[in-house]
């Protein structure tokens, strides 16, 4: 099975776009965090897939591992913030949290 | 001491301001005394300066000290210096500044609110004005130029009239806009100019004298007169000139960028109005003569007609507006617009007469407008009302005041015997002659400008008729009893002004002999260089 590299790229781009749309449009903060994960994983996919183009170079895979770690941290911080938000605002809809404006 | 005279003039007020800073705010009299002492010292320095000044010897009392020297490697060295000096252009204005600032201090005697702050700001303003008139380094000039803004802003905004906030912000924004235009050109200029005295290394100099020499432009620079880059309709040099021109024209002020002036004047306290009209406006004209014209003579030559035309428009538009003004201070403010138009017309003539007239006009208008604003202030002090239509027949009630008003009005409308006449007639002669010498102005401009004389007579005499003649009658929230004649302090503020105006109207030679060499040199330089640079492809 020899899938060309650009297929991975398309998939990555698709994942990234979906993630972005989710981030922008979902009304639940948890889902927004999921969208973020999608976006990060789109990059991961790219990084790993590019190994095809640059064989013998493990930097991409390394990077992906780091990204996964960072994504975990990010999720942790994000969830903590969401919890705080819920405590203060009794909602997890980002749009409803808009006391800071203008 | 002689070689430090200008520095003494400049730093005495700053040191006094610093000293005042550490004195308790409660001892109000101290601040007045300190300021007066500074003024007296400045007068003494000025006298020494005048006695040792040699007319026709170019720049004198020059102090040149390195200030900023930055070695930027391949790019070259950036050099700004503490470079001051006086010549036939700046000496009259420095003298005027010292005199008017003294008058302003005396006129400030009645300030009671926050005396400390007021006098500190006044002292800073003092230094900035003197500095602007003496600086020969663009960066230094710009420093002083900007330095005037904040004290002036607060002086109007804190001690001004009812609409002071609006007026002060308008003043500030306008002037800042002008100074930004100047800043743009300053940046472009110093990058483009090198110091010819240093061989080998490229030295980017802020020295105005270097900038005025066309051969000092780095040949790759956009502003190099021999390689004028075309940017849209004009060459880069013309653009630069236009920016400078409008930058200074705002200060001058020229129609249509004049509207900050009436507001600022109407709202400012009397001494500040005096300084504003007598000195700050002159910096516009001074900047044109010192910076815009000599550095870009080709563009100035090319656009001379435009400068002259704007001058004529200012003369007439300002006059018409003065005629329709209902407030005495506003009327005087508009008359300033009209009179400063003569400065533009004179400078744009590229003749010795026109230039001398322009400088003389700056000096003379400094005296006359100071007197006018003091007079307007006298009335405002009495009744807090400057509406022209609220008064009638003051001549009978306030005879001395009316006498001074007569002097000031007739001096301002250019009656012979007063200094304004000499200035205006020189401007007219120069402006008319310009075309014959290959200068940029058409004869018709001078002819149209004579309308300004008629309009000037019309609004002043009409005001006289309305306010001072006819039967005594007042309207508004005050009574006739409040209209006391001049008190002694006011009298002694006005008398020296009136005498000075008269003196320079009857004996122009002392002042003219100072201006003359400068005017000749200036006119010949801009005309010749302007023509030559224009001819070179």
């Amino acid at each position, binding site marked *: 099975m020899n899938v060309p590299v650009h297929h991975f790229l398309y998939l990555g781009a698709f994942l990234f776009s979906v993630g972005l749309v989710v*981030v*922008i*449009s979902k009304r639940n903060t948890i889902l927004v965090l999921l969208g973020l994960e999608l976006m990060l994983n789109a990059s991961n996919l790219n990084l790993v897939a590019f190994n095809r183009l640059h064989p013998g170079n493990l930097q991409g895979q390394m990077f992906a591992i780091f990204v996964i770690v960072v994504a975990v941290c990010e999720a942790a911080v994000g969830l903590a913030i969401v919890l705080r938000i819920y405590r203060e605002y009794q909602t997890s809809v*980002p*749009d409803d*949290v*808009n*006391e*800071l*404006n*203008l | 001491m002689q070689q430090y005279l200008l520095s003494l003039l400049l730093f005495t007020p700053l040191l006094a301001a610093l000293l005042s800073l550490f004195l308790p705010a409660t001892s109000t009299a101290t601040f007045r005394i300190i300021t007066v002492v500074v003024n007296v010292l400045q007068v003494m320095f000025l006298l020494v300066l005048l006695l040792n000044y040699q007319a026709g010897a170019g720049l004198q009392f020059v102090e040149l000290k390195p200030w900023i020297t930055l070695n930027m490697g391949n790019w070259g060295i950036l050099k700004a210096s503490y470079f001051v000096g006086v010549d036939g252009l700046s000496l009259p204005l420095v003298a005027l500044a010292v005199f008017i600032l003294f008058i302003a201090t005396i006129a400030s005697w009645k300030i009671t609110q926050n005396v400390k702050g007021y006098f500190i700001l006044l002292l800073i303003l003092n230094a900035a004005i003197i500095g602007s008139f003496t600086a020969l380094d663009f960066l230094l000039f710009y420093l002083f130029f900007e330095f005037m803004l904040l004290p002036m802003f607060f002086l109007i905004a804190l001690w001004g009239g009812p609409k002071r906030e609006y007026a002060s912000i*308008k003043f500030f924004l306008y002037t800042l806009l002008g100074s930004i235009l100047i800043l743009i050109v300053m940046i472009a200029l110093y990058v483009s100019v090198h110091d010819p005295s240093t061989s080998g290394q490229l030295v980017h100099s802020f020295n105005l004298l270097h900038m005025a020499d066309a051969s000092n432009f780095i040949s790759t620079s956009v502003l190099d007169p021999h390689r004028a880059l075309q940017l849209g309709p004009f060459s880069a040099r013309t653009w630069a000139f236009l920016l400078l021109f409008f930058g200074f024209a705002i200060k001058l002020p020229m*129609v*249509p960028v004049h*509207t900050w002036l*009436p*507001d600022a004047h109407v709202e400012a306290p009397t001494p500040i109005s005096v300084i504003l009209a007598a000195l700050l406006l002159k910096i516009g004209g001074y900047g044109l003569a010192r910076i815009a014209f000599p550095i870009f003579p080709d563009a100035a030559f090319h656009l001379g007609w435009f400068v002259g035309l704007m001058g004529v428009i200012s003369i007439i538009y300002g006059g*018409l*507006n003065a*005629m*329709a*003004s209902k407030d005495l201070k506003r009327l005087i403010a508009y008359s300033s617009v009209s009179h400063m138009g003569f400065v533009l017309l004179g400078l744009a003539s590229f*003749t*010795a*007469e026109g230039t*001398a007239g322009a400088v003389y006009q700056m000096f003379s208008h400094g005296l006359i407008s100071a007197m006018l604003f003091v007079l307007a202030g006298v009335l405002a002090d009495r009744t807090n009302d400057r509406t022209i239509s609220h008064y009638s027949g003051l*001549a*009978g009630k306030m005879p001395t005041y009316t006498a001074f008003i007569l002097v000031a009005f*007739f001096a301002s409308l250019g*009656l*012979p015997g007063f200094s304004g006449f*000499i200035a205006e007639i*020189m401007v*007219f*002669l120069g402006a*008319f*002659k310009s075309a*014959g010498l290959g200068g940029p102005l058409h*004869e018709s401009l*001078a002819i149209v400008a*004579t*309308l300004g*004389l*008629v309009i000037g*007579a*019309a609004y002043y*005499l*009409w005001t*006289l*008729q309305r306010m*001072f*003649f*006819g039967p005594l009658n007042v309207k508004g929230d005050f009574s006739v009893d409040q209209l006391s004649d001049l008190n002694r302090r006011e009298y002694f503020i006005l008398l020296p002004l009136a005498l000075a105006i008269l003196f320079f109207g009857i004996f*122009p*030679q002392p002042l*003219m*002999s100072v201006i*003359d060499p400068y*005017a*000749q040199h200036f006119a010949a330089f801009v005309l010749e260089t302007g023509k030559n640079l224009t001819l070179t492809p």
Partner: protein
Amino acid sequence: MDAIHTYSFLFHFCLVAALAFPLLSFVLSFYISEKYSWITSVLASFLLLLGTLASAVVLYQAWNHPPFAYRLEWFSLAGYSFSAGVYINNISALMLFIVTGVSFLVHLYSVGYMAGDAGIQRYFAMLGFFTFAMQGIVVSGNLLMTFVFWELVGFSSYMLIGHWHEIPAAAEASKRAFIINRVGDAGFLVGLMIVWAHGHSFDIAALQHMPVDPTWMTLASLGIFCGIVGKSAQFPLFTWLPDAMVGPTPVSALIHAATMVAAGVFLLARVHFLFTVPALHIVAVVGCITALLGAVSALAQHDIKKILAYSTLSQLGLMVVALGAGSPQAALLHLFTHAFFKACLFLAAGAVIHSLHQAQHQSHVHFDVQDIRNLGGLEKKLPFTFLIFVISGSALAGLPLTSGFLSKDAILTALVQWHGEGFSWKLLILAAVALVSFLTVVYTFRMIWKIFKGSETATAQLHISEPPAVMRAPMAVLAGVSLWIWFSWNPFNFYGWMYTNIGEAKPFHSGMVSIASAIWVILALGVAYVTRQVTVGSPLLLNAFYFDRLLKQFVEKPILQLAALTHHADKKWIDGFLHATAYAQLIVAHLTGWFDRAIVDGLVDGVAGAAKGLGSFTRSFQGGKIQLYIFWATFAIIIFIIWTLL
């Protein structure tokens, strides 16, 4: 100037003294305490007397000697010298004497006339200054200095006409006089600019050799003529002169005789050489119009002083015609004679007014004492004044045996000579001048008749007495010099000592003209007698063809409207709203108004508005909703990428 004449010290001294005394009078007036203000009047008259004596010495020493020229550098610029020059020849010496003399007489007269006036110090100060300024014009050998004094004359006339500043009409008239003069002066200034640009000198002597392009020369001379039109109240800038009658009567005498309106004619004579032929033609036409206009308007006036004012207009017109016709001598001769008899007439009229005022004051009857319709039969009550009036009136009318006959004759002769042979438009001018001299007789006769003859009406109940001696004396002196004898031995030949010495004498005198003129005048006298009861009721003439209203309507009002408009526009900047202006009737007004609203207003309002608008635009992305932020940022990046890649 082949023979260099050295002037004595006495001459120098007297020349300085002649000018210094009036100035001294001006200065000293400020130092006399208000309590003793009457001293001013005496002191001033005394100083003027000294001045007159000094100028007499000057006249004596300079008469028929080579001109005295002295140049003092006022200031120098660019290698050119702006000098204050003195130039004394026969004309200026004579004029100096006449100015100082008449002024002295007026001063003297004023001692009586103005006694008790509150502003007497100011009055005499300005009178002195007025004289000084006029003397300056007379002796100046330099156009710039002339212009300086010219303006100063305007200033002092402003102060004097508006002497009674509490009266609104006086304030109005003085303002008007100054502004109208300024209009002329603006033209004068243009003339000066042309002269300077081409000759680089203002020295009158030097200008005679100035090579100038004829077009510029014509323009320059017309420019200077503008100044003259203003000062000598020629058409169309004459309206200030009748208005100026609100000033004190001695001032009117001075203005009309020696110090103000004379300046124009004098200057015209002095710089006559600058005038090119086309320019002279215009001068002649303007003079002619003025003369006619003055004469016809005088017919319809009821106010004594107005009649005299219009008569001055018409006489000045005659002088200007003579100058236009190339005969400065004739004009000057008439100027000199006119100075005496017109001063005399005004003083006499002043005497009438003064006496009637005094009488009114005692009896508390009020009517307009200057209106001749209220007067009549004063012959018996004021015999001395009547006599003076008759003598000086005859001179004005140009009856034989008076100075006026001589000078008018000179003008007519000059015109006859000028128009030459054949038929040309110049003949029309000659005819007009003849008509003017005819009308002059008519209105003068009518005026005197109405005041002194007939029966008393309003004044019948009044106890009227002659004015004091201090007023009578100057009148007597002036009446005396209104006779022919001072100007030419032969009462029918103007070609006397004065005429021959005030210019290049042209040996042209036609006895025919004198005879014709004498007959013409007698005829006019007859007509005047016959029609003495006819009143010319034309309001058109009464108001001098509504000229000032015309000026008001078409010059003043638009300017004020324009001013209001520009101001309005400026204001709107500040207030930030526009509303339609009621003043926008004129196209110009519309245009400037549009310009101001669109361009000038637009600046601050526009910039501020745009800034705020832009601010609210850029801010509008900041709604507080985080997902929207992200959306906008994404959107912006996409736009950015697309824009850059394309």
